[in-house]
């Protein structure tokens, strides 16, 4: 989505802005929790858990059409399934960066809690 047009995104799905904002907040919260799990899995070199968690992130990102975040998660999942974790930190960083952008964009659009 790049710089996010939240009104258009809400209209596309057919939800009110408030409802769509709530969904993005849920997405951010869940992905932050998944990133922590990912960190833990990578620290333990647990490829199975890394792949499963990346898969989880990817699914939610696809639902919300956060394509770049989904792509990074997919790449991480692929690597982990092939038994490699060398690029895990890089993909995690991309996911983190994309998430930060989503978070910041949402806050800019809807500054009050």
């Amino acid at each position: 989505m790049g710089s996010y047009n939240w009104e258009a995104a809400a209209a596309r799905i057919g939800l009110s802005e408030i409802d769509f904002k709530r969904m993005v907040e849920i997405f951010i919260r869940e992905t932050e929790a998944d990133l922590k799990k990912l960190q833990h899995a990578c620290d333990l070199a647990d490829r199975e858990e890394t792949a499963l968690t990346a898969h989880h992130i990817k699914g939610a990102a696809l639902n919300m059409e956060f394509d770049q975040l989904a792509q990074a998660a997919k790449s991480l999942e692929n690597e982990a399934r092939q038994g490699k974790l060398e690029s895990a930190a890089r993909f995690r960083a991309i996911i983190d960066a994309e998430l930060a952008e989503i978070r910041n964009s949402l806050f800019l659009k809807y500054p009050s809690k």
Partner: protein
Amino acid sequence: MNNNMQKVLVVDNHPLILEFLAKLLTGENCQVKTAENGLEALDVLSQYHPDIIFIDLIMPNIDGETLCRIIRRKPQFEKTYLVILSAIAVETKVNFISFGADACIAKGPLVKMKKHILDVLSEAADMTSKKGSGNIRGLEDLYVREITGELLSIKRHFEVVLESITEGIIEITDNNRIIFANPAAISLCSISEEELLASDFRELFNGGDRRRIGALLERVKDHSSSANEGVEAVINDRELEIRVSPVNSGKKGAIVILVDITDRNRWQTHLRQRERMESVGTLAAGMAHDFNNLLMGIKSNTSLLLMEMTSDHPHYERLRSIEKQVASSASLIKQLLGYARQGRDEVEIMNLNRLIGETVDVMARTRRDITIHMELAADLKDIVADVGQIEQVLLNLLINAGDAMPQGGDIFLKTAGVDHLEMRSKVFKVKADAYIMLIVTDTGIGMDKKTRERIFEPFFTTKEMGRGTGLGLASTYGIIKGHGGYIEVESKQGKGTTFRIYLPAKE
């Protein structure tokens, strides 16, 4: 509430999907409830009767397919429209029809899913619409995800392993609710999967077993128990060894392994019993011979004295009394020798059915409050046996049955021919042969486990002092063994007793 309002349940472990569907469907004038997994869904369904249920296929604590099967077996949800939400629809042909779902929507961009969700909403409301075309909606919006295919292959591999092993495997949550049971566990518990899942594991047991299982689960949770600590308990008359290990992952809970040790315990009991009886038998045989010799000495001297006097002699009656008591003692010794003996005295070819008929007549005359039912095989093979000893066996069994029914009752007698292969499940090792089987069942007071394990022991009796010698069943055991046969007993307190006797048939 509007009567046309559709009632919906959404079951998915991702809060995003729950939020989206709740908002979307509420906007379509639906009443919506949500659940995060299959276990929670079953709890909701105990109080809520939805028209449509959206179910995520892959989720913890009872997955989507299992949940569908459980729901479909409940009559109250026969008409409920079940819709699968699948993130793996591309990689695997989800045969949602086979587990009772009516439609399947592939997970993907929400804007695409929305269209399919609204379509199934209309279909569910239209009672005349044809359900279950088998096509997965939204597949065209997705791309093949190869890696998920590999994940699924691994999952399927473990499913095959769990389905194949003979031990029961049950997974429980940290509050003891069952969320998975493999086919072996379902078979051991003898209840359906839909009753088993979501139930409290401790409720499979009664009384003391339940308390001990509960205590074990607490110890495992507190990590005060080492992994794989086990206890023995009973489910459906099967004796099980139960081991519990904590789940070593993010989610709390435990894995329970159930091993059926009924046959192992029976075999061990049988061995102990046999060893005990053989050592008692050796001792008894030795003593019996010595006593018999002494009795013969008393008998012969008494007989000689009686021969030298007339009936009006002052000591005549006393000597006659001694003679009678010697005869009673000899009879008792004979029973004990019967238990200890290994051979048969005078054998002949005989038919058990005929002997049963004669023996039962005697019983019927003495106990009119007992009804005897007979189911005797017309083509029963003959046996080669000592008629007197087999008659003694029959009388012992009938007398014991009668004693177990002081207020009257029923005795069932059955004979049949059996092959050694049909006796394979028995505790004793059976020689390859054809056998005749005699079953004697009463509707009496039955026996507890401790009594059952000892009834063939010499001198063991449940009767009060002076009323039983404890040799009847011991000699029965010895006679049957001496004829190359087998005897076993089944009994439950309050439920009667069954003896099964197997004797080699004549070729």
